[in-house]
């Protein structure tokens, strides 16, 4: 059930036509490291959009309400608030530097019995915090071995189940996903379920382990599925089936023959995220050259789009892009060797209810909407 790679029909499925809406951020060629966006997240209603950057700043955008005198401004996101959330710290005792980079932003539900949040700053532990108790937390997962020499994997991502507050998943650098039920034991070192797809021995390489490391895990809104992102693909898992994913979509399979170069320039360590649309019928993830990919799970169509300043006229339609993996390059195709690996889209977000997407391209935030919106 592998998804087809490459270009597809000129929409993300469901007859969508994506158009440019807005772009935020400086146009400068020289991007300051601090300005690189490191996380993007819509609020639960979609009216607010938050970004965090490597400099520790958070910017919150708010969607404009409908305004008859300015009909086209409806749906525009404008800055609502910005603040410095984290500062760099230095622990002199341990000679340890704490980066101010914002790794994740999560909106808390406005009305929810859940008053907990997960923190996974550490590669080896997951702690559970009660919002009203800030001086201590519960440790629910700890994979630190007694002897660090025996360390073979680290935690790479974790998430609560959207509906069952006692269920969480965490992914590992080995490509496995563990589902834990906090009701069954206080310390969730032993998983309730282990999701792992056997590797393909025929495609084994030096880098097989790196590219199988899961960089992101997201539950579907329904709570029935979860999606994992590894370096070359996104996989959709049915929580009821641990043996293999129900869907595998190739994001940029043409990179498989370039893994050595990507290892050399560190791109192979890039942690791409992925996201679901509101109805769980489509998924989106980023790639290089400021490309991002959408996969329609119903029609099985996929499309590659680009976030670029060149194509940023208001309501300009996005043209599907194609990458030529080899052989004769057709017109409008981009060859693999001319991809700009410094332009990577790691963070994307999809409005929970509408076809509005936010795509972070280094220090710029692009907002695209479906024409019908």
């Amino acid at each position, binding site marked *: 059930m592998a998804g087809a790679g490459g270009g597809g029909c000129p929409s993300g499925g469901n007859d969508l036509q994506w158009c440019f809406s807005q772009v935020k951020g400086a146009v400068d060629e020289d991007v300051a490291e601090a300005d690189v966006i490191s996380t993007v997240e819509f609020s639960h209603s979609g009216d607010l959009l938050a970004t965090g950057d490597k400099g520790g700043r958070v910017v919150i955008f708010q969607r404009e309400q409908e305004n008859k005198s300015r009909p086209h401004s409806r749906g525009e996101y404008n800055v609502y608030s910005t603040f410095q959330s984290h500062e760099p710290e230095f622990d002199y005792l341990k000679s340890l530097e704490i980066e101010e980079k914002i790794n994740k932003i999560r909106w808390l539900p406005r009305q929810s019995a859940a008053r907990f949040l997960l923190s996974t700053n550490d590669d080896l532990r997951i702690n559970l915090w009660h919002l009203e108790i800030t001086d201590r937390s519960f440790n629910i997962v700890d994979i630190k071995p007694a002897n660090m*020499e025996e360390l073979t994997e*680290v935690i790479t991502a974790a998430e609560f189940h959207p509906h069952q507050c006692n269920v969480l998943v965490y992914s590992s650098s080995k490509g496995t996903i563990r589902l834990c039920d906090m009701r069954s034991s206080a310390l969730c070192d032993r998983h309730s379920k282990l999701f792992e797809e056997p590797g393909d021995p025929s495609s*084994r390489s030096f*880098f*097989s382990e790196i590219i199988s490391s899961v960089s992101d895990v997201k539950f579907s809104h329904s709570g029935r599925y979860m999606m994992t992102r590894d370096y070359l693909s996104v996989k959709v898992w049915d929580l009821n089936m641990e043996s293999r994913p129900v869907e595998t979509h190739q994001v940029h399979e043409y990179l498989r023959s370039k893994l050595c170069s990507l290892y050399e320039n560190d791109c192979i*360590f890039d942690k791409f995220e992925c996201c679901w649309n509101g109805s769980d019928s489509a998924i989106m993830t980023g790639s290089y050259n400021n490309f991002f990919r959408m996969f329609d799970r119903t029609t099985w169509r996929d499309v590659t789009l680009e976030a670029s300043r060149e194509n940023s006229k208001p309501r300009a339609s996005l043209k599907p892009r194609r990458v030529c993996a080899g052989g004769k390059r057709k017109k409008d195709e981009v060859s693999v060797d001319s991809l700009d690996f410094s332009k990577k889209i790691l963070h994307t977000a999809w409005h929970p209810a509408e076809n509005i997407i936010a795509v972070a391209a280094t220090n710029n935030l692009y907002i695209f909407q479906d024409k019908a919106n």
Partner: protein
Amino acid sequence: MEFKLEAHRIVSISLGKIYNSRVQRGGIKLHKNLLVSLVLRSARQVYLSDPCPGLYLAGHPGTPALPQQPGESVAGPPAGWGEPPPPAACAAWPEPEPQLELPAVPEVPRAGDTEPAATVTGAGDTLQGGEAAAAEAAWRRVEGPRETAVGGAGVPAGGSDVFSQGPGAARRPCGCPPGDEDKSASPRVDGCRAPRPAGPEPPVPPSVCPRKRGAEGVGGGPADCPAPGSTPLKKPRRNSEEQPGGAAAEEEEEMETGNVANLISIFGSSFSGLLRKSPGGGREEAEGEKSGPEAAEPGQICCDKPVLRDINPWSTAIVAF
């Protein structure tokens, strides 16, 4: 052969990454270093399982491909990815001379050899066997601490130090202030390592390795501070009295991690010195004790566990990064 070339390149790149991770802002990233160590292990396994063991000691450019040395059994085709090298690979290494002579060193590529991996040393040099065996042993330790490439690279020591060469060696902070002409191998407080998420225990002393190795048999010397742009491996070599000065000087410029075969051969010859010499000043006692059995059982270097522990400096050199 292509596998071997690629493996060689990947090992070089990996070592460079581990080294650079020590000086980058934010400290050593556990996840990334873990992945790099896995790649290092895979590449090393392929490297070892290649049926051209002579390639280790990359020789002069233009040297013909190595024909099998007399008495050397033919190793099978490269083992599958991720599989341990077949026993034949170990057996392929000829018995090293118990007393390795300096002339073995000339096998080391001269200055200007940028990719000696492409060539192999001339066959028939019986001393080469010793080098090969020592190099093989050196590589063995890459396997051992593959996780501790991470652990040594700054993960809070879980209490044990895989590179411990003995109870005394463990847990002493690695010291490597530049220009510190320490005559002994006693580790110093690390003044120049990048911040690490170290726990309350003293940091593992992996970067003591170059210095220790130097102290073991070649007169000791300052540990190399991994200042950006330099490579710790220079120091022990510089202090090595085993190596002809010419090769040593020429080698320095090659010591960028891009030339791993050089490193192996250099370490190899120094290990041969290790085998022969009694411990140098300040050298860990444990090492001194173990050099005996190692020298006594050269043929088993690649498989002997005590030997693996014994030849720590190589592994700590890697982890030092």
